[in-house]
Protein backbone atom coordinates (compact mmCIF):
# COMPACT_ATOMS: atom_id res chain seq x y z
CA UNK A 1 0.00 0.00 0.00
CA UNK A 2 0.93 3.64 -0.39
CA UNK A 3 -0.35 6.57 1.59
CA UNK A 4 -2.66 8.86 -0.37
CA UNK A 5 -0.09 11.64 -0.60
CA UNK A 6 2.51 9.18 -1.92
CA UNK A 7 0.06 7.85 -4.49
CA UNK A 8 -0.74 11.39 -5.59
CA UNK A 9 2.95 12.24 -5.80
CA UNK A 10 3.75 9.29 -8.06
CA UNK A 11 0.70 9.45 -10.29
CA UNK A 12 0.46 13.17 -11.03
CA UNK A 13 2.70 14.19 -13.92
CA UNK A 14 1.36 17.49 -15.15
CA UNK A 15 3.40 20.71 -15.33
CA UNK A 16 4.79 21.73 -11.97
CA UNK A 17 4.45 18.32 -10.34
CA UNK A 18 7.54 16.54 -8.97
CA UNK A 19 6.85 13.36 -10.96
CA UNK A 20 6.25 15.45 -14.05
CA UNK A 21 9.61 17.04 -13.44
CA UNK A 22 11.23 13.61 -13.39
CA UNK A 23 9.71 12.75 -16.78
CA UNK A 24 10.82 16.16 -18.01
CA UNK A 25 14.43 15.35 -17.10
CA UNK A 26 14.98 12.92 -19.97
CA UNK A 27 14.01 12.36 -23.60
CA UNK A 28 10.60 10.75 -23.94
CA UNK A 29 9.15 9.00 -26.97
CA UNK A 30 6.55 11.39 -28.34
CA UNK A 31 5.38 9.80 -31.58
CA UNK A 32 6.44 7.36 -34.25
CA UNK A 33 8.55 8.85 -37.01
CA UNK A 34 6.06 7.36 -39.46
CA UNK A 35 3.38 9.69 -38.10
CA UNK A 36 5.23 12.60 -39.71
CA UNK A 37 6.36 10.82 -42.85
CA UNK A 38 7.51 13.70 -45.06
CA UNK A 39 8.23 17.44 -45.16
CA UNK A 40 5.05 19.49 -45.16
CA UNK A 41 2.85 16.56 -44.06
CA UNK A 42 -0.24 17.10 -41.91
CA UNK A 43 0.47 17.97 -38.27
CA UNK A 44 -0.36 15.52 -35.47
CA UNK A 45 -1.96 16.31 -32.13
CA UNK A 46 0.18 15.08 -29.24
CA UNK A 47 -0.78 15.20 -25.60
CA UNK A 48 2.12 14.48 -23.25
CA UNK A 49 2.50 15.02 -19.52
CA UNK A 50 -0.87 16.81 -19.54
CA UNK A 51 0.14 19.33 -22.18
CA UNK A 52 -1.65 19.72 -25.53
CA UNK A 53 0.98 19.92 -28.24
CA UNK A 54 1.22 19.72 -32.00
CA UNK A 55 3.93 17.80 -33.81
CA UNK A 56 4.76 18.75 -37.36
CA UNK A 57 7.52 18.45 -39.94
CA UNK A 58 7.85 21.68 -41.86
CA UNK A 59 8.37 21.92 -45.61
CA UNK A 60 12.15 22.19 -44.99
CA UNK A 61 12.07 18.89 -43.03
CA UNK A 62 12.52 20.56 -39.65
CA UNK A 63 10.71 18.79 -36.82
CA UNK A 64 8.52 20.82 -34.49
CA UNK A 65 6.64 20.18 -31.27
CA UNK A 66 4.75 23.29 -30.29
CA UNK A 67 1.75 24.42 -28.30
CA UNK A 68 -1.32 23.13 -30.15
CA UNK A 69 -3.14 26.45 -30.05
CA UNK A 70 -2.65 29.70 -31.90
CA UNK A 71 -1.59 32.55 -29.65
CA UNK A 72 -4.14 34.86 -31.28
CA UNK A 73 -7.61 33.45 -30.54
CA UNK A 74 -6.69 29.99 -29.27
CA UNK A 75 -7.81 27.86 -32.20
CA UNK A 76 -6.17 24.51 -32.78
CA UNK A 77 -3.28 24.70 -35.20
CA UNK A 78 -4.07 21.13 -36.17
CA UNK A 79 -6.15 22.82 -38.89
CA UNK A 80 -3.08 24.82 -39.91
CA UNK A 81 -1.51 25.02 -43.33
CA UNK A 82 1.97 23.47 -43.31
CA UNK A 83 3.62 25.66 -45.94
CA UNK A 84 6.86 27.46 -46.80
CA UNK A 85 8.85 26.61 -43.71
CA UNK A 86 6.09 27.22 -41.19
CA UNK A 87 2.61 26.45 -39.96
CA UNK A 88 -0.06 29.01 -40.72
CA UNK A 89 -3.22 29.35 -38.65
CA UNK A 90 -6.16 29.13 -41.06
CA UNK A 91 -8.24 31.58 -39.00
CA UNK A 92 -6.33 34.88 -39.48
CA UNK A 93 -3.12 33.68 -41.10
CA UNK A 94 -0.68 33.92 -38.21
CA UNK A 95 2.36 31.85 -39.08
CA UNK A 96 4.85 30.03 -36.82
CA UNK A 97 8.22 28.45 -37.44
CA UNK A 98 9.40 25.11 -36.05
CA UNK A 99 10.57 26.74 -32.79
CA UNK A 100 7.11 28.20 -32.18
CA UNK A 101 8.28 31.69 -33.08
CA UNK A 102 5.58 33.68 -34.80
CA UNK A 103 6.98 34.90 -38.11
CA UNK A 104 3.92 36.56 -39.64
CA UNK A 105 0.88 38.44 -38.33
CA UNK A 106 -0.75 39.54 -41.60
CA UNK A 107 -3.04 42.11 -39.99
CA UNK A 108 -0.11 44.03 -38.49
CA UNK A 109 2.40 46.06 -40.50
CA UNK A 110 5.43 43.84 -40.97
CA UNK A 111 7.62 46.84 -40.04
CA UNK A 112 6.06 46.88 -36.55
CA UNK A 113 7.85 43.66 -35.69
CA UNK A 114 4.80 42.60 -33.67
CA UNK A 115 5.22 38.98 -34.66
CA UNK A 116 8.56 38.91 -32.87
CA UNK A 117 6.68 39.37 -29.62
CA UNK A 118 4.66 36.18 -30.13
CA UNK A 119 6.16 32.77 -29.44
CA UNK A 120 4.45 29.49 -28.73
CA UNK A 121 5.88 27.15 -26.16
CA UNK A 122 7.91 24.52 -28.00
CA UNK A 123 10.06 21.54 -27.21
CA UNK A 124 12.89 19.94 -29.17
CA UNK A 125 11.83 16.98 -31.29
CA UNK A 126 14.45 14.64 -32.72
CA UNK A 127 14.31 11.39 -34.70
CA UNK A 128 16.14 8.32 -33.47
CA UNK A 129 15.40 4.66 -34.12
CA UNK A 130 12.09 5.29 -35.87
CA UNK A 131 10.84 7.33 -32.92
CA UNK A 132 10.44 11.07 -32.47
CA UNK A 133 11.71 11.96 -29.02
CA UNK A 134 11.13 15.10 -27.06
CA UNK A 135 12.73 16.70 -24.05
CA UNK A 136 10.28 18.83 -22.05
CA UNK A 137 12.58 20.09 -19.31
CA UNK A 138 14.58 23.28 -18.89
CA UNK A 139 16.71 23.92 -22.01
CA UNK A 140 19.86 24.44 -19.94
CA UNK A 141 19.52 20.91 -18.57
CA UNK A 142 18.88 19.15 -21.90
CA UNK A 143 20.65 15.77 -21.71
CA UNK A 144 22.51 14.03 -24.56
CA UNK A 145 20.37 12.15 -27.09
CA UNK A 146 18.74 8.89 -25.96
CA UNK A 147 21.06 5.88 -25.96
CA UNK A 148 18.57 3.04 -25.47
CA UNK A 149 20.01 0.21 -27.55
CA UNK A 150 16.85 -0.48 -29.58
CA UNK A 151 16.98 3.13 -30.81
CA UNK A 152 20.58 2.86 -31.95
CA UNK A 153 20.44 -0.29 -34.11
CA UNK A 154 19.66 0.01 -37.84
CA UNK A 155 15.92 0.37 -38.43
CA UNK A 156 15.64 -3.01 -40.17
CA UNK A 157 16.68 -4.60 -36.88
CA UNK A 158 13.96 -3.05 -34.77
CA UNK A 159 10.20 -2.62 -34.58
CA UNK A 160 8.37 -0.05 -32.50
CA UNK A 161 4.68 0.32 -31.80
CA UNK A 162 2.53 2.30 -29.42
CA UNK A 163 -0.94 1.89 -28.09
CA UNK A 164 -3.28 3.96 -26.01
CA UNK A 165 -3.74 2.66 -22.49
CA UNK A 166 -6.57 4.26 -20.58
CA UNK A 167 -5.15 4.39 -17.08
CA UNK A 168 -2.42 6.16 -15.15
CA UNK A 169 1.14 5.45 -16.24
CA UNK A 170 2.13 3.93 -12.89
CA UNK A 171 -0.33 1.07 -12.89
CA UNK A 172 0.68 0.26 -16.47
CA UNK A 173 4.39 0.39 -15.62
CA UNK A 174 3.93 -1.68 -12.49
CA UNK A 175 2.48 -4.42 -14.67
CA UNK A 176 5.75 -4.40 -16.59
CA UNK A 177 7.77 -5.28 -13.50
CA UNK A 178 5.22 -7.60 -11.92
CA UNK A 179 6.94 -10.81 -12.95
CA UNK A 180 4.75 -13.08 -10.85
CA UNK A 181 1.66 -12.60 -13.04
CA UNK A 182 3.27 -14.12 -16.13
CA UNK A 183 2.74 -17.74 -15.07
CA UNK A 184 -0.98 -17.05 -14.79
CA UNK A 185 -2.22 -14.31 -17.07
CA UNK A 186 0.09 -15.06 -20.01
CA UNK A 187 0.45 -18.81 -19.53
CA UNK A 188 -1.38 -19.52 -22.77
CA UNK A 189 0.98 -17.44 -24.89
CA UNK A 190 4.40 -18.86 -23.98
CA UNK A 191 3.97 -21.90 -26.16
CA UNK A 192 1.78 -20.48 -28.88
CA UNK A 193 2.86 -16.92 -29.70
CA UNK A 194 5.33 -16.99 -32.62
CA UNK A 195 7.49 -14.39 -30.87
CA UNK A 196 7.80 -16.46 -27.70
CA UNK A 197 7.49 -20.15 -28.46
CA UNK A 198 10.24 -22.70 -28.88
CA UNK A 199 12.80 -21.59 -26.31
CA UNK A 200 14.43 -23.85 -23.77
CA UNK A 201 13.67 -21.14 -21.24
CA UNK A 202 9.96 -21.83 -21.78
CA UNK A 203 10.55 -25.40 -20.61
CA UNK A 204 12.08 -24.08 -17.41
CA UNK A 205 9.15 -21.69 -17.10
CA UNK A 206 6.52 -24.34 -17.51
CA UNK A 207 8.43 -26.87 -15.42
CA UNK A 208 8.54 -24.61 -12.41
CA UNK A 209 5.39 -22.53 -11.94
CA UNK A 210 6.59 -21.05 -8.65
CA UNK A 211 9.67 -19.03 -9.44
CA UNK A 212 11.62 -17.38 -6.67
CA UNK A 213 12.20 -13.67 -7.15
CA UNK A 214 15.18 -11.54 -6.35
CA UNK A 215 15.05 -7.77 -6.53
CA UNK A 216 18.38 -6.01 -6.76
CA UNK A 217 19.08 -2.32 -7.16
CA UNK A 218 20.87 -1.21 -10.32
CA UNK A 219 22.49 2.16 -11.11
CA UNK A 220 19.40 3.31 -13.05
CA UNK A 221 16.69 1.36 -11.28
CA UNK A 222 16.20 -2.32 -10.62
CA UNK A 223 17.01 -5.78 -11.78
CA UNK A 224 14.15 -8.15 -11.16
CA UNK A 225 15.37 -11.72 -11.33
CA UNK A 226 13.01 -14.67 -11.55
CA UNK A 227 14.81 -17.87 -10.60
CA UNK A 228 13.83 -21.38 -11.56
CA UNK A 229 15.60 -24.68 -11.19
CA UNK A 230 17.79 -25.80 -14.07
CA UNK A 231 19.97 -28.87 -14.52
CA UNK A 232 22.80 -29.90 -12.17
CA UNK A 233 21.65 -27.73 -9.30
CA UNK A 234 22.01 -24.53 -11.31
CA UNK A 235 19.42 -21.81 -11.58
CA UNK A 236 17.74 -20.46 -14.69
CA UNK A 237 17.40 -16.70 -14.29
CA UNK A 238 15.19 -14.32 -16.19
CA UNK A 239 16.38 -10.81 -15.42
CA UNK A 240 14.11 -7.87 -16.23
CA UNK A 241 15.48 -4.35 -16.33
CA UNK A 242 13.59 -1.41 -14.91
CA UNK A 243 15.09 2.04 -15.40
CA UNK A 244 13.42 5.04 -13.77
CA UNK A 245 10.95 6.37 -14.38
CA UNK A 246 9.25 4.25 -17.01
CA UNK A 247 11.47 1.89 -19.02
CA UNK A 248 11.25 -1.88 -18.77
CA UNK A 249 13.02 -4.59 -20.77
CA UNK A 250 11.87 -8.17 -20.56
CA UNK A 251 14.27 -11.12 -20.55
CA UNK A 252 14.79 -12.69 -23.99
CA UNK A 253 13.73 -16.12 -25.15
CA UNK A 254 15.97 -18.13 -27.50
CA UNK A 255 16.78 -16.17 -30.67
CA UNK A 256 13.52 -14.22 -30.60
CA UNK A 257 13.79 -10.43 -30.72
CA UNK A 258 14.17 -8.79 -27.34
CA UNK A 259 11.36 -6.57 -26.21
CA UNK A 260 10.38 -3.96 -23.71
CA UNK A 261 8.35 -0.87 -23.04
CA UNK A 262 8.13 2.78 -22.16
CA UNK A 263 5.06 3.92 -20.22
CA UNK A 264 4.66 7.61 -20.97
CA UNK A 265 1.93 9.70 -19.35
CA UNK A 266 -0.49 11.41 -21.74
CA UNK A 267 -2.31 12.85 -18.76
CA UNK A 268 -3.00 11.40 -15.34
CA UNK A 269 -5.70 9.07 -16.67
CA UNK A 270 -4.06 7.85 -19.88
CA UNK A 271 -0.64 6.77 -21.06
CA UNK A 272 1.14 5.57 -24.16
CA UNK A 273 2.36 2.02 -23.89
CA UNK A 274 5.35 1.97 -26.22
CA UNK A 275 6.57 -1.47 -27.21
CA UNK A 276 9.88 -2.23 -28.91
CA UNK A 277 11.45 -5.35 -30.34
CA UNK A 278 14.96 -5.59 -31.70
CA UNK A 279 17.96 -7.75 -32.54
CA UNK A 280 21.53 -6.59 -32.25
CA UNK A 281 23.23 -8.52 -35.03
CA UNK A 282 20.57 -9.28 -37.62
CA UNK A 283 17.55 -7.71 -39.31
CA UNK A 284 14.18 -8.86 -38.11
CA UNK A 285 12.91 -11.57 -40.42
CA UNK A 286 9.90 -10.89 -42.61
CA UNK A 287 7.98 -13.41 -40.51
CA UNK A 288 8.89 -11.68 -37.26
CA UNK A 289 8.01 -8.25 -38.58
CA UNK A 290 4.71 -9.53 -39.95
CA UNK A 291 3.86 -11.07 -36.57
CA UNK A 292 4.58 -7.75 -34.85
CA UNK A 293 2.56 -5.79 -37.39
CA UNK A 294 -0.29 -8.26 -36.88
CA UNK A 295 -0.27 -7.50 -33.16
CA UNK A 296 1.45 -10.58 -31.82
CA UNK A 297 4.04 -10.73 -29.07
CA UNK A 298 3.73 -7.56 -27.02
CA UNK A 299 2.14 -5.57 -29.85
CA UNK A 300 -1.54 -5.15 -30.73
CA UNK A 301 -3.77 -4.75 -33.74
CA UNK A 302 -5.62 -1.45 -33.92
CA UNK A 303 -8.92 0.18 -34.62
CA UNK A 304 -8.04 1.30 -38.18
CA UNK A 305 -6.51 4.77 -38.38
CA UNK A 306 -5.85 4.99 -34.65
CA UNK A 307 -3.50 3.72 -31.95
CA UNK A 308 -6.47 2.37 -30.01
CA UNK A 309 -6.20 -1.41 -29.63
CA UNK A 310 -8.80 -3.37 -31.59
CA UNK A 311 -9.70 -5.16 -28.37
CA UNK A 312 -10.49 -2.35 -26.00
CA UNK A 313 -12.81 -1.29 -23.22
CA UNK A 314 -15.59 -0.29 -25.62
CA UNK A 315 -15.96 -3.89 -26.78
CA UNK A 316 -15.13 -5.54 -23.44
CA UNK A 317 -11.71 -6.45 -24.87
CA UNK A 318 -13.43 -9.10 -27.01
CA UNK A 319 -13.41 -11.36 -23.99
CA UNK A 320 -14.04 -14.99 -24.95
CA UNK A 321 -15.46 -16.93 -22.01
CA UNK A 322 -15.36 -20.20 -23.92
CA UNK A 323 -11.63 -19.77 -24.61
CA UNK A 324 -11.16 -19.00 -20.92
CA UNK A 325 -13.05 -22.14 -19.94
CA UNK A 326 -11.05 -24.23 -22.37
CA UNK A 327 -7.77 -22.79 -21.10
CA UNK A 328 -6.78 -21.22 -24.41
CA UNK A 329 -6.43 -17.95 -22.55
CA UNK A 330 -6.34 -17.55 -18.80
CA UNK A 331 -8.48 -14.40 -18.61
CA UNK A 332 -10.53 -14.80 -21.77
CA UNK A 333 -8.69 -11.91 -23.44
CA UNK A 334 -6.29 -12.70 -26.26
CA UNK A 335 -2.83 -11.21 -26.69
CA UNK A 336 -0.24 -10.39 -24.06
CA UNK A 337 -0.61 -6.61 -24.29
CA UNK A 338 -4.37 -6.56 -23.94
CA UNK A 339 -4.37 -9.22 -21.25
CA UNK A 340 -2.35 -6.74 -19.21
CA UNK A 341 -4.14 -3.59 -20.33
CA UNK A 342 -7.64 -4.98 -19.76
CA UNK A 343 -6.86 -5.71 -16.13
CA UNK A 344 -4.93 -2.52 -15.51
CA UNK A 345 -7.70 -0.40 -17.03
CA UNK A 346 -10.27 -2.28 -14.96
CA UNK A 347 -8.63 -0.81 -11.85
CA UNK A 348 -9.98 2.61 -12.88
CA UNK A 349 -8.00 5.60 -14.12
CA UNK A 350 -5.89 5.84 -10.95
CA UNK A 351 -5.99 2.97 -8.53
CA UNK A 352 -6.34 3.88 -4.87
CA UNK A 353 -3.21 2.25 -3.50
CA UNK A 354 -4.26 2.84 0.09
CA UNK A 355 -6.62 -0.12 -0.38
CA UNK A 356 -4.31 -2.70 -1.88
CA UNK A 357 -2.91 -5.72 -0.07
CA UNK A 358 0.55 -6.37 -1.40
CA UNK A 359 2.35 -9.61 -0.69
CA UNK A 360 5.95 -10.60 -0.57
CA UNK A 361 6.24 -11.35 -4.28
CA UNK A 362 5.30 -7.74 -4.97
CA UNK A 363 8.70 -6.57 -3.79
CA UNK A 364 9.63 -5.49 -7.33
CA UNK A 365 6.74 -3.04 -7.27
CA UNK A 366 7.47 -1.98 -3.69
CA UNK A 367 11.13 -1.34 -4.53
CA UNK A 368 10.25 0.58 -7.71
CA UNK A 369 7.99 2.91 -5.72
CA UNK A 370 10.68 3.24 -3.05
CA UNK A 371 13.24 4.18 -5.72
CA UNK A 372 10.86 6.67 -7.36
CA UNK A 373 10.09 8.35 -4.04
CA UNK A 374 13.79 8.44 -3.15
CA UNK A 375 14.65 9.93 -6.52
CA UNK A 376 11.98 12.62 -6.07
CA UNK A 377 13.52 13.56 -2.72
CA UNK A 378 16.99 13.70 -4.28
CA UNK A 379 15.65 15.89 -7.10
CA UNK A 380 14.49 18.40 -4.50
CA UNK A 381 18.14 18.76 -3.58
CA UNK A 382 19.10 19.34 -7.18
CA UNK A 383 20.24 15.83 -8.10
CA UNK A 384 19.68 14.43 -11.58
CA UNK A 385 17.25 11.50 -11.43
CA UNK A 386 18.20 7.99 -12.58
CA UNK A 387 17.56 7.16 -16.22
CA UNK A 388 18.97 10.36 -17.67
CA UNK A 389 22.58 9.33 -18.20
CA UNK A 390 23.70 7.15 -21.11
CA UNK A 391 25.15 4.65 -18.64
CA UNK A 392 21.67 4.04 -17.24
CA UNK A 393 20.23 3.62 -20.73
CA UNK A 394 22.80 1.18 -22.14
CA UNK A 395 21.32 -1.79 -20.35
CA UNK A 396 20.01 -5.20 -21.32
CA UNK A 397 17.74 -7.83 -19.93
CA UNK A 398 19.12 -11.37 -19.86
CA UNK A 399 18.17 -15.03 -19.56
CA UNK A 400 21.04 -17.06 -18.13
CA UNK A 401 21.85 -20.25 -16.25
CA UNK A 402 24.13 -19.64 -13.26
CA UNK A 403 25.63 -21.56 -10.35
CA UNK A 404 23.37 -21.54 -7.30
CA UNK A 405 25.28 -19.23 -4.99
CA UNK A 406 26.23 -16.48 -7.43
CA UNK A 407 24.70 -12.99 -7.20
CA UNK A 408 23.20 -12.62 -10.67
CA UNK A 409 24.08 -8.95 -10.75
CA UNK A 410 27.76 -9.85 -10.71
CA UNK A 411 27.74 -13.24 -12.41
CA UNK A 412 25.75 -11.83 -15.33
CA UNK A 413 27.36 -8.39 -15.18
CA UNK A 414 28.42 -8.34 -18.84
CA UNK A 415 25.04 -9.62 -19.97
CA UNK A 416 23.22 -6.75 -18.27
CA UNK A 417 24.87 -3.95 -20.23
CA UNK A 418 25.15 -3.25 -23.94
CA UNK A 419 27.90 -5.29 -25.59
CA UNK A 420 28.55 -3.82 -29.01
CA UNK A 421 28.06 -6.35 -31.77
CA UNK A 422 26.98 -9.14 -29.44
CA UNK A 423 23.48 -10.47 -28.95
CA UNK A 424 21.68 -10.62 -25.63
CA UNK A 425 22.49 -13.50 -23.29
CA UNK A 426 19.54 -15.81 -23.82
CA UNK A 427 18.32 -19.35 -23.23
Amino acid at each position, binding site marked *: *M*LRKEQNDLLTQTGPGTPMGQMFRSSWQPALLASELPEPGCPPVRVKLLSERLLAWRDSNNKLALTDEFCAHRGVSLWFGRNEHGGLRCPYHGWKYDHTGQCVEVPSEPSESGYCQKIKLKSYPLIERGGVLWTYMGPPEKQPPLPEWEFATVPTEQSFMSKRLQ*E*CNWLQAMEGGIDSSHVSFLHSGELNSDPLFKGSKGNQYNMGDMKP*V*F*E*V*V*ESPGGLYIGA*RRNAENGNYYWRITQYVLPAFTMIAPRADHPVHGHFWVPIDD*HNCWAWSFDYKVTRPLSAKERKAMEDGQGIHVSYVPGTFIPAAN*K*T*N*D*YLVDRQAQKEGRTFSGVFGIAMQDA*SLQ*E*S*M*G*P*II*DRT*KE*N*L*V*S*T*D*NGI*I*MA*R*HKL*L*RALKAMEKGETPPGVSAEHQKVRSAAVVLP*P*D*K*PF*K*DAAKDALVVQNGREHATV
Partner: protein
Amino acid sequence: MQSESARMSSAAEARYRINAPNSKQRAVKVIALDAPSERIVKELAQRPWNGATFFTASAFGTTPKAGESFAGWLSDLAGRTKDLIDEVNSADLVVMIAAAGESAQAASIIGEACSVKRVMTTALVLGGNTVSDEALSKTLSHLRPWALMLVIASAEEYIADMLTALRA
Protein backbone atom coordinates in the same frame (compact mmCIF):
# COMPACT_ATOMS: atom_id res chain seq x y z
CA MET B 1 -24.43 2.04 -25.85
CA GLN B 2 -21.20 2.02 -23.87
CA SER B 3 -19.78 -1.39 -23.03
CA GLU B 4 -19.80 -2.50 -19.44
CA SER B 5 -15.99 -2.32 -19.25
CA ALA B 6 -15.94 1.24 -20.55
CA ARG B 7 -18.63 2.34 -18.14
CA MET B 8 -17.26 0.58 -15.09
CA SER B 9 -13.64 1.68 -15.46
CA SER B 10 -14.48 5.38 -15.49
CA ALA B 11 -13.39 7.79 -12.77
CA ALA B 12 -17.05 8.37 -11.93
CA GLU B 13 -17.62 4.69 -11.22
CA ALA B 14 -14.52 4.52 -9.01
CA ARG B 15 -16.53 6.50 -6.45
CA TYR B 16 -18.72 3.46 -5.89
CA ARG B 17 -15.95 1.13 -4.87
CA ILE B 18 -16.83 -0.32 -1.50
CA ASN B 19 -15.09 1.60 1.21
CA ALA B 20 -14.76 -1.11 3.81
CA PRO B 21 -11.72 -2.91 5.17
CA ASN B 22 -10.78 -5.78 2.87
CA SER B 23 -8.10 -7.46 4.94
CA LYS B 24 -7.32 -8.52 8.46
CA GLN B 25 -4.12 -7.81 10.28
CA ARG B 26 -1.27 -10.02 9.15
CA ALA B 27 1.27 -11.47 11.53
CA VAL B 28 4.64 -10.42 10.18
CA LYS B 29 7.71 -11.53 12.14
CA VAL B 30 10.92 -9.69 11.40
CA ILE B 31 14.09 -11.50 12.41
CA ALA B 32 17.62 -10.09 12.41
CA LEU B 33 20.10 -12.77 11.44
CA ASP B 34 23.29 -11.04 12.53
CA ALA B 35 24.58 -8.28 14.79
CA PRO B 36 24.53 -5.42 12.22
CA SER B 37 20.95 -6.31 11.29
CA GLU B 38 19.98 -6.48 14.93
CA ARG B 39 20.83 -2.81 15.34
CA ILE B 40 18.62 -1.94 12.37
CA VAL B 41 15.76 -4.12 13.54
CA LYS B 42 15.92 -2.58 17.02
CA GLU B 43 15.55 0.87 15.49
CA LEU B 44 12.68 -0.31 13.30
CA ALA B 45 10.88 -1.80 16.25
CA GLN B 46 10.58 1.67 17.80
CA ARG B 47 8.19 2.76 15.05
CA PRO B 48 4.47 2.19 15.11
CA TRP B 49 3.49 -0.98 13.28
CA ASN B 50 0.33 -2.79 12.47
CA GLY B 51 1.17 -5.82 14.59
CA ALA B 52 4.63 -6.63 13.23
CA THR B 53 6.94 -8.17 15.83
CA PHE B 54 10.70 -8.10 15.88
CA PHE B 55 13.26 -10.69 16.91
CA THR B 56 16.89 -11.56 16.67
CA ALA B 57 18.59 -14.82 15.89
CA SER B 58 22.03 -13.27 15.80
CA ALA B 59 23.16 -15.09 18.93
CA PHE B 60 22.19 -18.42 17.43
CA GLY B 61 24.27 -18.56 14.34
CA THR B 62 24.52 -22.30 14.00
CA THR B 63 22.17 -25.22 13.66
CA PRO B 64 21.10 -26.72 16.98
CA LYS B 65 23.03 -29.89 17.69
CA ALA B 66 21.24 -33.21 17.87
CA GLY B 67 18.99 -33.28 20.88
CA GLU B 68 18.91 -29.48 21.26
CA SER B 69 15.50 -27.93 20.99
CA PHE B 70 14.36 -24.84 19.15
CA ALA B 71 12.71 -23.64 22.32
CA GLY B 72 15.22 -20.97 23.18
CA TRP B 73 16.48 -20.42 19.73
CA LEU B 74 15.08 -16.99 19.09
CA SER B 75 14.96 -13.93 21.28
CA ASP B 76 12.89 -10.81 21.27
CA LEU B 77 14.57 -7.45 21.35
CA ALA B 78 14.41 -7.30 25.12
CA GLY B 79 16.55 -10.41 25.21
CA ARG B 80 13.80 -12.83 26.26
CA THR B 81 14.12 -16.20 24.59
CA LYS B 82 11.31 -17.27 22.32
CA ASP B 83 10.31 -20.56 20.81
CA LEU B 84 10.96 -20.42 17.09
CA ILE B 85 8.28 -22.95 16.29
CA ASP B 86 5.67 -21.04 18.26
CA GLU B 87 6.55 -17.84 16.48
CA VAL B 88 6.49 -19.45 13.05
CA ASN B 89 3.20 -21.14 13.88
CA SER B 90 1.55 -17.80 14.39
CA ALA B 91 3.20 -16.03 11.44
CA ASP B 92 1.77 -15.15 8.04
CA LEU B 93 5.13 -13.92 6.83
CA VAL B 94 8.65 -14.18 8.18
CA VAL B 95 11.09 -11.49 7.07
CA MET B 96 14.76 -12.28 7.62
CA ILE B 97 17.19 -9.37 7.63
CA ALA B 98 20.85 -10.01 6.87
CA ALA B 99 23.84 -7.77 6.34
CA ALA B 100 25.77 -8.52 3.16
CA GLY B 101 28.94 -10.42 3.94
CA GLU B 102 27.67 -11.74 7.27
CA SER B 103 26.95 -15.38 7.76
CA ALA B 104 23.23 -15.92 7.43
CA GLN B 105 23.38 -19.48 8.73
CA ALA B 106 20.40 -18.93 10.99
CA ALA B 107 18.30 -18.69 7.85
CA SER B 108 18.38 -22.44 7.42
CA ILE B 109 16.77 -23.09 10.80
CA ILE B 110 14.16 -20.40 10.37
CA GLY B 111 13.58 -21.33 6.76
CA GLU B 112 13.14 -24.99 7.55
CA ALA B 113 10.61 -24.21 10.25
CA CYS B 114 8.74 -21.97 7.82
CA SER B 115 8.89 -24.61 5.12
CA VAL B 116 7.39 -27.24 7.42
CA LYS B 117 4.64 -24.87 8.49
CA ARG B 118 4.15 -23.50 4.94
CA VAL B 119 4.86 -19.93 6.00
CA MET B 120 6.05 -17.43 3.39
CA THR B 121 9.63 -16.18 3.82
CA THR B 122 11.28 -13.04 2.55
CA ALA B 123 14.96 -12.24 2.98
CA LEU B 124 16.37 -8.78 2.80
CA VAL B 125 20.10 -8.27 2.35
CA LEU B 126 21.43 -4.85 3.18
CA GLY B 127 24.59 -3.31 1.82
CA GLY B 128 25.04 -5.56 -1.19
CA ASN B 129 27.13 -2.91 -2.91
CA THR B 130 29.56 -2.55 -0.03
CA VAL B 131 31.07 -6.04 0.05
CA SER B 132 32.91 -8.27 -2.41
CA ASP B 133 31.11 -10.71 -4.70
CA GLU B 134 32.50 -13.60 -2.64
CA ALA B 135 31.22 -12.16 0.60
CA LEU B 136 27.80 -11.54 -0.90
CA SER B 137 27.79 -15.06 -2.37
CA LYS B 138 28.36 -16.47 1.09
CA THR B 139 25.33 -14.65 2.44
CA LEU B 140 23.20 -15.60 -0.56
CA SER B 141 24.19 -19.25 -0.36
CA HIS B 142 22.62 -19.41 3.11
CA LEU B 143 19.53 -17.42 2.21
CA ARG B 144 18.54 -18.64 -1.23
CA PRO B 145 17.41 -22.12 -0.28
CA TRP B 146 15.03 -20.68 2.31
CA ALA B 147 13.85 -17.32 1.02
CA LEU B 148 10.89 -17.37 -1.35
CA MET B 149 11.54 -13.71 -2.09
CA LEU B 150 14.91 -12.04 -1.78
CA VAL B 151 15.77 -8.36 -1.98
CA ILE B 152 19.23 -6.82 -2.02
CA ALA B 153 18.79 -3.21 -0.97
CA SER B 154 21.19 -0.34 -0.52
CA ALA B 155 19.13 1.75 1.88
CA GLU B 156 18.11 0.62 5.35
CA GLU B 157 14.97 2.69 4.88
CA TYR B 158 13.75 0.11 2.38
CA ILE B 159 12.84 -2.28 5.20
CA ALA B 160 10.44 0.23 6.68
CA ASP B 161 8.97 1.01 3.26
CA MET B 162 8.52 -2.68 2.54
CA LEU B 163 6.90 -3.43 5.89
CA THR B 164 4.57 -0.46 5.45
CA ALA B 165 3.65 -1.61 1.94
CA LEU B 166 2.88 -5.06 3.35
CA ARG B 167 0.74 -3.54 6.12
CA ALA B 168 3.02 -5.17 8.68
